[in-house]
């Protein structure tokens, strides 16, 4: 069930059969990539893009978005003045709205991609075509949801 296990087993089998190829492989490892290469030279397939965006959105949600949302919840619940200030002033600024938009995208993407990963975990849609289609669906759905909530926000 853990994806890495398959890779390890496959590599061991591969080593056993072709020790020469393995030696050549070993010499070039570990391979370090520059940030520029990661960003511009390596073209990730669609599922790869969904995966790295899942990680980036997750990290953003942990910090700083969770702290910010907790602050908003805190202020909006502490008193009526706090609630009115958040609603009528704080969240009216373009910066705060942009922040909310980032939060909405990160949450929607993490949510949609997460459901896709849960389905993959129980072996649903693991064929190449289905996996690519669901990856595209996740990207489009999270952007569409962001656009919808963004529209309602403004």
């Amino acid at each position, binding site marked *: 069930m853990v994806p890495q296990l398959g890779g390890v087993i496959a590599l061991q089998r591969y080593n056993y059969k072709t020790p020469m190829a393995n030696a050549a492989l070993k010499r070039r490892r570990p391979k370090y990539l520059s940030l520029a290469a990661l960003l511009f030279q390596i073209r990730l397939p669609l599922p790869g893009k969904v995966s790295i965006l899942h990680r980036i959105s*997750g990290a953003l949600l942990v910090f700083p978005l969770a702290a910010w949302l*907790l602050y908003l919840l805190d202020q909006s619940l502490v008193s009526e003045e706090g609630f009115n200030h958040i609603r009528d002033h704080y969240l009216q600024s373009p910066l705060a709205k942009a922040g909310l938009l980032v939060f909405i995208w990160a949450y929607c993407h993490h949510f949609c991609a997460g459901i896709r990963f849960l389905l993959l975990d129980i072996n649903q849609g693991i064929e190449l075509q289905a996996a690519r289609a669901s990856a595209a669906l996740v990207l489009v759905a999270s952007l569409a949801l962001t656009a919808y909530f963004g529209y309602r926000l403004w």
Partner: protein
Amino acid sequence: MVNRVIVGAHYGMGSWLAQRVTAVIMAVYTLVLGFVLIEEGPFDYAEWQELFAGGWMRVATLLFAASLAWHAWVGMRDIWMDYVKPDALRLALQVLTVLLLAGYLGWAVQVLWR
């Protein structure tokens, strides 16, 4: 024999499974809260406060916050393990992550039970 690292994972299915179970808990909470917000909104202060003062809402939100902390711990630890090689730095970042998430949890309790 696996070369075990003290700042590595626990080499079992526990964290992996916990991350998925907490994900499902949070997804259900998100859908329910999203439905309530869209159906009942927009809120004024009294309605907003009443929503989060309900016993079930407090417990559900605390459950969400605890799930988030556990889920985020596994995810952030994966990130540190993948990108941060020096053990001391990785340990420092892991400790910071735990402090941050524990702080969130404490803050959430404070906000909910004021």
